Structures are given as C-alpha cells and as structure tokens.
C-alpha cells in the first residue's frame, strides 16, 4: 500500500498488561494538541478515536506507528482475541514500533505478574527474546515508569519530521538516554563532596549513600527535561529508583546496598577503585557550607 505524500502518519496505541500510567503521563505533554494534529490517531485508550477497540481487535486495519504500552503476556486476551495475534498483525505492517514505558520495553513492574512468561515486546529484561525480535530494526524503546511525556513527544516529532533516531544497545534514543538521571540533579554538590542526606524530607545531602538513589547508574534525562516541566524525584528528596533500566523494579528501594559500608554499585563506567579513591579524598575535607541547613528560617530574620 502506497501512502500519499500529504497523508498523515497513523498511530495506533495498543495496551497489554498495564496501569495506564503511560497513557496518563503522555496526556501531560504541554504541546499535546500541536503534536496530535500532525498525526491521524486510529486508536488511543483514553479518548474516542477513529476506530473502537472492537474494530482494532478484528485485525483488518493497519497503522504506520504502533505504540505498545504495558507488559506483554502471551496468554492475555483483549476483547477475547489473543493479544499476541493483535500485536503481530499491527507490528508486521507498521513502519515504526514504540514501546511506551518500562513494561513494554523490558517487562517492568508487571513482569512479576507471571515472571516465567511475561516480557517486553523486544526485550525480556536485558535479553532480546520478546515476541517482536523479528521486527527489531523498527522498534524504539522509551523506558521509564511511567514514560516521560516529552520523551514520547520528541520521538514522535522526529519520526514525523523523517529524522533518524539514534539508539543505544537497548533500543533507547541516545539523545534521551545517553546521560544519567544524576546529570542536572540539584544535589550534585553533595555528591561531589560526599555529604549524605541525614534522612528524608531535607533539601540538603545526597541520596546515593543511604537512601538508595540509583541516579548515577540510571540512563535517563529526568533532571534535564523536568517532569511536568517543574521537578524530578531527586529534587524533591525521593531517591531515583532506576525505573528506566531493565532490572526495574529492584528490591529494598529506599536503601543503598553496601558491602562493608561501601556502596555495592558505583557510578556507571567508574571503577570501584577510582570511586573509592576519589570518595576517600573528598571525605577528608569538610565543607562547612554543605554540612548545615541551606536556609535556617529560625535564625534568619
């Protein structure tokens, strides 16, 4: 089937086992109306669209961009049709396939519902053994739990502009996932000088040493492209849980795993020896400014 030049790309948003979090996160996109005007939306779960899910499940249509949200469960049925058949049908004809969120990318949260059979569409955690390996050239993974709306907005815009999206080995766009969640964190100075947060609910201190923060080991641009345009987990004192990585969700998420009081995982690409040397030196200095409260409302008048 040939597409006319002026025809808009069609999008079909299909769901597996999901909480709808990616759908709702996407709806927060500030340029949503503008973006949607560039496409023809065949089906989107939160709104009435051109086709009902009943028509979609008959597998007689086709789409240019298939967006899949949720964990893939080979035994799941949607409207009494096996999800695997619906997915295969639309994947075959699609020009691009986007996995929206960590469930669709790697299995994510709901892999745990049936760990022996559930997976992402291309990857099962890190292993390339999902149901769509045949179409891997056209798959883009936008991991995150949920997906960041701007990441989806960026990817769809690149596709509509016919620009190449460069991917990492886990099929995530490099421009979104080459940096770490740590980049741009407002607590970076505390990390540099090894000043721990003394607990939750504080502006001061780094969450890496005690509170389980995964930002230095997690590929994402959460602290560069802020959430809801205003903030991020680490900025408001919640540790990064590493939700864009294939091993999400890990366990004991609010605690840093240590061996003999040394963090088990050190920043990506840094050898443990270099890290310990650097940390040891930094710790010998005491930066008074970083040891107290940034603002002491009680003594400032």
């Amino acid at each position: 089937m040939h597409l006319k030049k002026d025809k808009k790309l069609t999008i079909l948003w299909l769901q597996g086992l999901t909480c709808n979090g990616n759908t709702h996160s996407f709806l927060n996109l500030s340029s949503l109306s503008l973006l949607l005007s560039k496409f023809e939306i065949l089906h989107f779960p939160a709104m009435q669209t051109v086709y009902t899910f009943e028509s979609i499940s008959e597998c007689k249509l086709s789409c240019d961009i298939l967006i899949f949200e949720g964990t893939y469960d080979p035994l799941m049925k949607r409207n009494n049709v096996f999800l695997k058949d619906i997915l295969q049908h639309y994947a075959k004809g699609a020009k691009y396939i986007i996995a929206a969120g960590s469930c669709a990318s790697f299995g994510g949260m709901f892999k745990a519902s049936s760990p022996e059979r559930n997976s992402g569409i291309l990857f099962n955690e890190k292993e390339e053994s999902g149901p769509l390996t045949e179409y891997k050239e056209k798959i883009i993974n936008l991991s995150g739990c949920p997906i960041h709306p701007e990441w989806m907005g960026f990817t769809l815009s690149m596709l509509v502009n016919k620009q190449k999206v460069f991917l990492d080995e886990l099929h995530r766009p490099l421009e979104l996932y080459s940096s770490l969640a740590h980049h741009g964190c407002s607590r970076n100075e505390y990390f540099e000088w090894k000043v721990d947060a003394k607990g939750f609910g504080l502006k001061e201190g780094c969450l890496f040493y005690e509170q389980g923060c995964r930002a230095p080991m997690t590929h994402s641009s959460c602290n560069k492209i802020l959430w809801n345009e205003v903030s991020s987990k680490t900025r408001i004192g919640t540790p990064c849980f590493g939700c864009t990585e294939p091993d999400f969700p890990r366990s004991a998420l609010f605690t840093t795993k240590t061996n003999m009081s040394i963090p088990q995982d050190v920043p990506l690409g840094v050898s443990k020896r270099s890290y310990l040397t650097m940390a040891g030196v930094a710790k010998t200095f005491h930066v008074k400014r970083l040891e107290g409260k940034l603002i002491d409302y009680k003594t400032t008048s």
Partner: protein
Amino acid sequence: MITKQLLEQIEGEASVYFDIQNEKVAFATVSFPHFRGMESILEGKNALDSLVITPRVCGICGHAHLMATVRALENAYKNGGYEINLTQKSQKIREFTLLMEMIQNHFKWLYMVIIPELSKLTTLNLENRPLKGAFAASIAAKAIALFGGQWPHSSYMVPGGVTADPTHIELLQAQNYLQELIMFFEKESLGFSLETFLSFESCKEFGGFDSDIVSLEAALMDAQMHQKGFAYDRFFVMGEHGFSKVAKVKSTRTFGVESKYITTQAAYAPQAQSFAKNALYKNAYYETGPLARLMAKGRPFVKNMHRRYKDSAYSRVMARVYEIASMLSYVQNLLKDIEITQDSVTPLVDIKKISAEGVGVVEAPRGPLVHRVKIEDGIIKKYEIITPTQFNIGSSSLEKPTPVQMAMQGLSKEDALFIFRTFDVCSVCTTH
C-alpha cells in the same frame, strides 16, 4: 437474549452482559478480564517498597494508592508500639497533592468521557473537546509535581511525612498553578466565577448562562437523566481528611462507620471470567464517590438536587462537577498557612523493627480506597487492596444487585451504557 458490550475509556477494559427484554435492560452483569496480582507482587517485599509498587496499581489515581499505603504503614507503626505524629506541614502537603489528583481525574472524566458519551443521547449541541480535559489535568499535575517530583507515579510520601522540603518558592508556584486552573475552570467550563457557582443553592440557578457546564446540565435534562440511573440511595465515605466527613448516608441521615466492616465477595459474572471482587459494608452495597462525599457533608446545592432527583444519573454527574469547584476552593486555603519551618518528616525507628498489621483508608476520586497490610520484621506478609469501583461497579446476582446493576435496570441499552460511566469506572483499580 444476552448481548455483550465491550467498554473503553474506563481505565482499561470491561464487558457488560445485558439481558435485554422488550428492548429494556432486565439485568446486566459486568466482567473485568485483566488481572495483575498486585497484592501477591507485594508479599515478601520490604514494606517501604510498597510506596513504589502500589502507585503503579493505577495511572490515574496512583497518588491515592500512595497515600493509602503510607497510612497503612503508619498505622502498622502505631500498632507496633511507635505512634507517628505528622507535622501540619506534611499533612497539608499530602492533602493538597491528593486533592489535585482528584481534580485532574474529574476534569478528564468530564471532557474525555461524559461529554462525548452524553452527546450521543441528546439533540442539544455539546461541544466535544476532550483535550480541554487533558490540558486542565496537566496543570493540576504540575502542582502535584512541585512536591511529588512527578505525576503520575510519585513515591514522595514516606512514613512520618513527605520527602519534599519546599521553600516559599514552590508554595507560590503551586498557588499560581492553582489560580491558572481556577481561571481555566471559570472561563472554559463554567462561564461564571467559582464563587458564584459555590453560592448556588440549586441547579435552577444555571439559567441565563452559556458554557460547557450549563450545556451539560441542559443535556442531562434533555436525556432525562434526572429520572434514570437510580441506585440504593445510600452512600458511603470512609477516608478521613480535612475535606471529608466519614459517614454512611441513608437518604439524608448520616451514621458512623468503621473500616473493619468492609468485606469483599467474589463477583457473579456467569458469561465470562472476571477477576473483580465486590466490596460491601456490613454486607450491603453502597454508592461511593463525589455524590456520597457531598451528601455526607450536606452541601446545600447537592442536598437540593438530591431532594428533587435523588441518586439519579443527573445527580451523580452534577455532584462530580460541583466537587471540582468545592475542591478548587478548598485547596486554595490549604496552601495559605503552611508553616515552612516545620519538619517534613518526623523521626521514626527503622521499619525492620515493626511487626504489626495496619490499615490505611483514603478518599480516592471514586470513593474509599482501603489498603490493609501485615508486616513482620519490616517485610510484607500480606497485602489487601479494596478500591472504590469495587463498591460501585460490582457484579452480583439479580436478588441483590450492586449499585451500577440497579442503576441500569429497566433502561434502554444506550442509556444504561451512559449510566455505567456516570460512576466513573476504573477498571485497572478494580482488578489490580
């Protein structure tokens, strides 16, 4: 003959099986086909991990799940011998973000579900612009993210308080987003001021205005929704907050309630497998959500509406609209007197020292959300989640129908399908 109808735009998928006789619904059952096993995912995990896992029950009301979890954990601390006293600051911030999530939910339901569905049943002109709902919701989400870091799926509430340590900058930004949202509601939805709407004593006062809400009200009348969709005329509110009154309401009389009387039963869905359970209070069905909350509070606008139209589909829809207004007004005051010098988190012992059971109940957009947890040495042994849609949209037998089954009886299939949505269904929460 039994006919099946697949339903969408209900936060997932459900099927309604209608028994149609003489073109009217004689009876209907509901099945929710998808199951994720959230409760068993939680078992064996560090108790604090539930703060990350339970928000992922639901993409639209995950914040309510977070708050139910943190309340359940704090209750377990208390039952384990360590009572936690939250500062006013952390309580107010929690309540602010919870209410902003409800407001975003109601806006989406109004513009993405109710107006498009109602326009199928009325000859009146209803402007169908679903993205207005998404836009309003995104402003509410920004205000949440100032304290919660992000929305959806924040985990910023922890036992003892909140992880955020805001300055007056964030408080001011939150007030600004709130004002923006109120202005949107006044200009784009109401056509008059929030204050005017809140001064209304009855829905007769809509006359003479022209706006989305005024058209909605007229269309509900046109579709005779004030004479359709009646359930048991009894309501149930369980979450304790500054904005709610915990009670059961029978007709107009209120009675005290205790969460221990909430039980669940397997759903009756003979046509298809359903993973839903029905929720009951003292073995009886109650309606939950905005109409229930406003009946318990006895707001004049809602009481007048109820006097005329009882628990009709009209009352259910208009109560939800009115709740947007009353919540927007309430949250304005909530932020005003936050004492910034108070602690965000009160000190507490490590969760590993806790072996106890805990219950957390909050008002979620659709009504009471109950989390029950059993912890041993800081590890979750058992977790139970009961969601408001389980109260409203259960599926039972003809002898003892659930509120939604009762509300659909005797109507045309088209009317029944609209009425199903007036309860604001959350499929993903129902089966979790």
